[in-house]
């Protein structure tokens, strides 16, 4: 009986390494131990192996082409170009690559933002490869929505893992 329970836990765990889960108006992740509210304009979603795609209303890209607005959510551990684990290493990398550091009410969370003509990328980190990357088109609604999701991040117990 115990073996079956362990097997069940392993199977459950195998399917929860995705970028997150959506439910109850929230996005959460059991590996990075956080949750945040979904923005009202992005109520549709698609789940993929490594990303959660939130889909919003149509918008026009900088190039003049129209597409649905979307926010893609990735795990920091899968997207980060750095493997350093110290808070200073992370900060040095992003600030030296022209990312802007912004504040968060949870002092454990460091947030970095980078924009270009077409896209905006937010990185929120709270420890040893723990964090989230959110990216979308660089327009007002998407930017505001990503910023709200980042600012609404609540860490679950044990999430803050800076060394």
């Amino acid at each position: 009986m115990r073996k079956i329970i362990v097997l069940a836990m392993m199977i459950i765990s195998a399917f929860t390494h995705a970028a997150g889960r959506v439910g109850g108006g929230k996005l959460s992740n059991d590996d990075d131990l956080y949750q945040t509210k979904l923005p009202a304009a992005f109520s549709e979603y698609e789940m993929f192996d490594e990303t959660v795609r939130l889909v919003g209303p149509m918008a026009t890209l900088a190039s003049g082409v129209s597409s649905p607005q979307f926010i893609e959510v990735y795990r920091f551990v899968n997207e980060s170009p750095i493997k350093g684990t110290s808070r200073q290493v992370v900060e040095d990398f992003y600030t030296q690559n022209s990312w802007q550091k912004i504040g968060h009410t949870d002092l454990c969370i460091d947030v970095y933002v980078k924009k270009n003509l077409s896209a905006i990328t937010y990185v929120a980190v709270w420890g040893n490869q723990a964090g989230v990357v959110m990216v979308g088109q660089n327009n007002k609604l998407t930017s505001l929505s990503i910023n709200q999701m980042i600012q609404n991040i609540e860490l679950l117990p044990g999430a803050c893992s800076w060394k």
Partner: protein
Amino acid sequence: MKTLLVLLGLMMSVSASAAPSKQIQFKMKNGDQSSPMPPEQTDPVESAKPIRVATARYKISRYEYAKLPDGSYDFKKTVLCTGDVNINVFDVRNNGTVVNAPIESVQCADTIAQKAIWVGGALTLTSEELIDVKEDVKYAFGMLTVSVLGNGTDPVIQPIESMETSSGGTKDVNAKSFVLGIMPARQAISVGTVFYSGLLDIKD
């Protein structure tokens, strides 16, 4: 014990179901009386006869949501093809019905993805939306569908999704172009999201 095994089986079958978990439907602004169908399934209304044929110029581009070395993202745009396609022009003032009028299809090879982008479908003509138009005959703006094919000969491997016209709708009769876009399921060959956009300019 048996219950646990059944539960386990159920969980596995749910988890194994194919992503995406939720089908996205992009709805037409007006006059959308039914879900858009793949072009080969359209059912033109026999009573609606085109009064003439106009030429439209299309341009299909691939947008790739690319990851940059510093961890940020950008869109990469690649124009895949341009060309002309015939488009039927209808007088749709007589009644309020919606007409699905098939137009020509075009194929557009995406060599990077080794896939073909197939563009075709139906213009949805909505006379209700043209009621304010003074001229006798106007083009109705509608929707096109785009699908991603295997290698140009294989059956469709990606479901066709619908898209919304974006350049002002039918009341803006001076806007002779509209943009179509599709965001298919994430492509394995891509770093990020790939979607295809097209522009159809009615040359009149």
